[in-house]
């Protein structure tokens, strides 16, 4: 397709990030540099994950097309490292209070967007062949922005001491769900045979539910009632 199409995809993928950055007040706190640091932490975490995967999880040679649930499960388990990474970012780099998880989530998601989405878009959306998958990919990046912010929020919640005891299991469950999201998506794709658009919709629904629940729990923390990130 044309360069115009590439422009469309990039706009769809990146502009929401800018909107969130501007509107969430991060811009006012000049948290840009912090976000970059978080992005660096993301890269470092990915490197560690890759080392871990390469060392301890030798690639299983299954027939293509089949679903290797145990292998995928183990791989997703390694994604716990993401949570640890987010936690470290929040405890070491990020600023004060509730801005922490916004910075961490933003930086994390942006780094992922740049590393994993830009090149495929650049190579693919410019090709002669038109395919909806680049538009879908751009939508997917919007969803993962919400996903990363809510995960960061959950990690932050988990580390809080003033979290209500009753909501701790919910936090842990949601963290687990977020962690094993790729696996769940994979199983959904295999079992139900969802089309790519339906899959995207399912992802969006799932992510927004997680985000709403975590937001609600965040609000239930008494001290946060007074000053939000707005």
């Amino acid at each position, binding site marked *: 397709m044309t360069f115009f199409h590439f422009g469309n995809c990039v706009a769809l993928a990146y502009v929401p990030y800018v909107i969130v950055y501007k*509107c969430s007040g991060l811009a006012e706190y000049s948290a840009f540099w912090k976000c970059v640091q978080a992005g660096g932490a993301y890269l470092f975490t990915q490197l560690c994950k890759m080392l871990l995967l390469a060392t301890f999880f030798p690639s299983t040679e299954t027939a293509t097309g089949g679903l290797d649930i145990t292998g995928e499960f183990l791989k997703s388990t390694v994604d716990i490292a993401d949570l640890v990474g987010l936690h470290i970012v929040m405890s070491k780099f990020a600023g004060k209070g509730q801005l922490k998880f916004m910075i961490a989530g933003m930086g994390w998601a942006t780094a992922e967007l740049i590393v994993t989405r830009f090149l495929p878009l*650049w190579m693919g959306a410019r090709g002669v*062949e038109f395919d909806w998958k680049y538009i879908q990919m751009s939508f997917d990046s919007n969803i993962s922005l919400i996903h990363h912010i809510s995960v960061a929020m959950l990690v932050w919640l988990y580390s809080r001491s003033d979290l209500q005891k009753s909501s701790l299991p919910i936090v842990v469950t949601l963290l687990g769900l977020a962690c094993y999201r790729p696996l769940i998506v994979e199983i959904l794709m295999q079992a139900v045979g969802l089309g790519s658009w339906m899959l995207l919709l399912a992802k969006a629904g799932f992510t927004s539910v997680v985000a709403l629940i975590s937001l609600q729990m965040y609000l239930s923390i008494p001290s946060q009632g007074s000053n939000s990130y707005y």
Partner: protein
Amino acid sequence: MWFDEMGEIFEMFKGSFPLSFLFFVPILIIISPVSPVNAAQEFGVYRMQHYDLQGTSYGSKNSIINMEARSVNSKMLTRRCAVAKLQDVTMPKYRDLMTQNAASLLIILPKNLNNLSLDEKQLLQSLEQELLQEPSSVPVYFTTESEYLDDIYLDVQEGNSGDNAPTAWEALLSSASANGFQLVISGSPAEALPDFEIANIQGRLSGYGIEEQLPTIVITAHYDAMGIAPALSYGVDSNGSGVILLLELARLFSKLFTNSRTHAKYNLVFLLSGGGKFNYQGSKKWIEDNFEAAEGNILSDVAFVLCLDTVGATNNLNLHVSKPPKEDSPGGQLYQHIEDVAKEHFPEVKVGMVHKKINLADEMLAWEHERFSIKRMLAFTLSHLDTHKSPDRTTILDTREKVSAAVISRNAQHIAEALARQIYNLTSQGSFQMFTDTLSVEESVVTAWLDYFASEPKAAQLLKADSELIMTLEQMMARYLKDVRKTSIKADKRDPEFVFYTGADYVMNAYNVKPAVFDLFLALCIAGYLALAYLCAQNFHIIYYALKLTVIPVSPKSKVN
């Protein structure tokens, strides 16, 4: 310091955003890669004939396509590739396309050509004839139907409706929702092959006695085939059947000639000539060479020349002559023998003689025997066709299914008997049958040969002198005959009689593309979506507040911004 200068440049861009945008976009466009590599679909296409013969060029000259697919019925075809099914294409339609400046034509042939009805077959054959006569520079491609191609065809048909929409708005809508296809032929363009070699294969069986003083019978068949697309020309009947018959005759007579009691007083020369569909270039050159040869002249005492052309179907056998032979000449005798054998052993066969004078004003000779007749040799062609004008000799419909091994075997037996009567002068023997038992024609061998011939296209431009088929034929001749030689013919450099071109089959890529209007629509939708996202983010506090209400009762102390 250059650092400061950099800073200044940045300042410049900071000052005016639109300007900097204009500055970067062209750079991005230039450096952005356009990779046509990851095509979704590719399929084989067969290019139409392309050759020059005696100074006239035939077929379509160009081969490269990179254009959008359109239905043949659409109004706008300029610089586009018309996609049509066989039944859509007629000659008036083709001329119409040419006047509309269609840049290329892709014709989808049905999967099995034999399932066509008789009318459709006739249509295809006449189309083949006329397309070839119509000189054009537009690339014409043929391909066989597949599921994917059907989808393309349907999509292209639908896209057509955009052109005929009643209002501009509807046209815009339909063109935005349409699925376009960009058809790309990758590969090198067609090039002339000035050094192309056509091979003739000859072999002989020497008669009993002093070889030079014995009369010679020449049996010849051309081995190449012709159809609208070289890569689709299998030519099993024309002239695979003739070649098989010749090989069978060579086998049978080699057996007879090696036995001293049946060693006849005739020399037999077998010739497999090339370029038969190109005005019999192979036999022409062969005659010239052998006429000029001072010693060992095979053509000094020719009893007759028997050409075999298209003998693989129906119960007819026609002897085509350019001058009716006298009753007592060898030709007349052979005809008499053929008739007798038919009467005695093959009552179902209808033998006839067709007389057609050589038209020297005509550029193309009608039959191969005319090449010999011009040189005042007694020559005739045996064929089941009753006229040289029959399109059956130059069609892609000439496939394995058209030909029956039983008919070829029977014809081989028939002609072998007649020839034997001539050679051994067996007129007085009554209905004696010579080729029985160990000497009989083996139908299984004929079937195997037929299958082999049907397995690959045999257009002259695909059969180089060292191709596998030629090698096989040469080996077979060498098994039965003596003195087997392969001679190759090259066209004259300065004034070539024939020029062939490369590029018989190509791989075509079909890219699914969307029109520019679609991009515009998409941009509008995305802008709408982003505006919505912006509104949501701006008014996030409303959601925030609403959620908060569900969690804890709003205390007078809490303040929400």
